[in-house]
């Protein structure tokens, strides 16, 4: 339940979506996962530019153990591949991020983005249709007006539920570089999109203009030393946002101070021991994700080997650091050669900000309880896919004698990476994307 401690939570397999393919089609690789604000809907985006939305079914008294399963609600093609002939640039259709808007009426709204274009999608239900038009017949063919002798009033008749997704806004041509983040503001009127060097502020109603609020492009590109890696609005203060960099720093900006927020209000950086510096230091310090806590008091950052929690009131170091897979430190050379060192892992808070979760390799994912300081490694695999099967904690053996249940570092499958996970806003339900499969786990009932 809400805010339960790690030792009380046993995670169970609930569902898995996707197929068991020997060779994974590139397009099927899941690239983003996001619950909406109530947890009723769960959206995924993939490399093929498609969005699939799952809806939680109503819990039934007859089957209490089924605890609301997620079924397909809607699916659509959000983005398509493009080729910018002017710049000779191939634009992938891969969905980088999906962010939900809070629900304000019967319809659901979400933002989806690829490298260049953000789109606002409206997902709505239709369960009635008008019948009895005067000027057209039931098939839609126009009737000859001269043949009409009487008028009738069209009526709404029930029909099979249809869920439609329509693109309501297309926010294009505002990013020279590749979009890595979008974030909806708490004012629900604006949102931001961030690329490697710039952040733009949009109004949902206006697609042909956006305000540039951060620009770190140097006058001379030879002087480029860092890029923006992620950005997010504060959950309550609509004037505040943060962005992270490839150098492992976070800047907090206040839009009230100036139109262009190039000067940060706060600068978060952990001092580095210069004697520890190596070729890999900067690469592994690059922040791949930044997330505000639900409370708005903390930010969490993910770099290659750790997850860190920062207090907004303390800029000089994080208040907590969690090792995700420190055993990879002695593998950095080969991880550099196979490009895995550049993998961008995300991180998430649970609803009460007491537990944080992030992915790793070999389809492992890790959870850290901030209160008890306990952590667990779990695995998303088809072998643990019996209904309500309790997930057994996994352990990586670093050296020496390997116990029976442990896996050695050299046996880890680095092609099975869990980059994207999501946590239900108020319950212990998590969604874990393992390449082309989506796993849903829940805590054990009773």
């Amino acid at each position, binding site marked *: 339940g809400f805010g339960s401690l790690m030792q009380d939570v046993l995670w169970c397999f609930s569902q898995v979506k996707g197929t068991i393919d020997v060779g994974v089609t590139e397009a099927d690789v899941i690239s983003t996962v996001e619950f909406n604000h109530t947890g009723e809907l769960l959206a995924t985006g993939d490399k093929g530019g498609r969005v699939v939305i799952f809806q939680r079914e109503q819990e039934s008294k007859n089957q209490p153990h089924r605890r609301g399963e997620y079924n397909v609600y809607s699916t659509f093609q959000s983005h398509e*591949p493009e080729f910018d002939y002017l710049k000779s640039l191939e634009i992938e259709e891969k969905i980088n991020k999906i962010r939900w808007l809070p629900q304000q009426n019967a319809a659901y709204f979400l933002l989806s983005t690829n490298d260049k274009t953000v789109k606002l999608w409206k997902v709505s239900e239709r369960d009635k249709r008008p019948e009895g038009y005067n000027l057209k017949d039931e098939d839609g063919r126009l009737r000859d007006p001269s043949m009409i002798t009487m008028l009738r009033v069209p009526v709404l008749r029930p029909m099979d539920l249809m869920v439609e997704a329509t693109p309501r806004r297309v926010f294009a041509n505002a990013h020279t570089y590749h979009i890595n983040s979008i974030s909806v503001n708490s004012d629900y009127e604006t949102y931001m999109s961030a690329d490697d060097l710039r952040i733009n502020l949009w109004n949902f109603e206006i697609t042909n203009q956006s305000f540039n609020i951060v620009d770190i492009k140097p006058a001379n590109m030879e002087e480029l030393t860092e890029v923006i890696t992620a950005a997010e609005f504060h959950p309550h203060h609509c004037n505040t946002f943060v962005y992270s960099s490839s150098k492992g720093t976070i800047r907090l900006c206040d839009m009230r101070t100036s139109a262009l927020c190039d000067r940060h209000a706060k600068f978060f950086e952990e001092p580095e021991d210069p004697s520890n510096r*190596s070729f890999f230091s900067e690469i592994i310090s690059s922040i791949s994700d930044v997330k505000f806590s639900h409370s708005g008091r903390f930010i969490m950052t993910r770099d290659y080997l750790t997850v860190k929690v920062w207090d907004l009131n303390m800029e000089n170091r994080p208040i907590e650091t969690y090792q995700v897979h420190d055993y990879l430190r002695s593998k950095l050379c080969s991880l550099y050669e196979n490009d895995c060192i550049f993998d961008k892992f995300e991180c998430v808070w649970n609803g009460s900000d007491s537990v944080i979760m992030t992915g790793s390799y070999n389809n492992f994912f890790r959870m850290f309880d901030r209160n008890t300081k306990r952590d667990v490694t779990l695995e998303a695999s088809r072998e643990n896919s019996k209904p309500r099967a309790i997930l057994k904690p996994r352990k990586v053996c670093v050296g020496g004698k390997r116990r029976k249940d442990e896996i050695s570092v050299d046996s880890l499958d680095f092609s099975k990476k869990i980059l994207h996970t999501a946590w239900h806003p108020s319950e212990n339900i998590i969604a874990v994307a393992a390449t082309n499969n989506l796993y849903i786990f829940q805590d054990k009932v009773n």
Partner: protein
Amino acid sequence: MSAENPESASAEEQKEMEDKVISPEKVEEAKLKARYPHLGQKPGGSDFLRKRLQKGQKYFDSGDYNMAKAKMKNKQLPTAAPDKTEVTGDHIPTPQDLPQRKPSLVASKLAG
């Protein structure tokens, strides 16, 4: 241990430890430098970042194109390698080379 604890050893003991133990990162760095002796001095700097910013770039610009054309005058036209995104200007784009990517009209298997 999931959360880091402050070093309990005194400063002297710590220095001694550090003198004796080489960090695993430095060992990995030595390995890499042995394999790629010409690797740049500023690893996190411009090379990586420029590669990141250039993602998706197929061909450079007309100057690059013309230089490549001049180079290729006496050689056979190389065939385009659709997956080589980093090298630009080395081969001449023809209409056949330009990507003919069709959007995936197949529904996602997650919805199946």
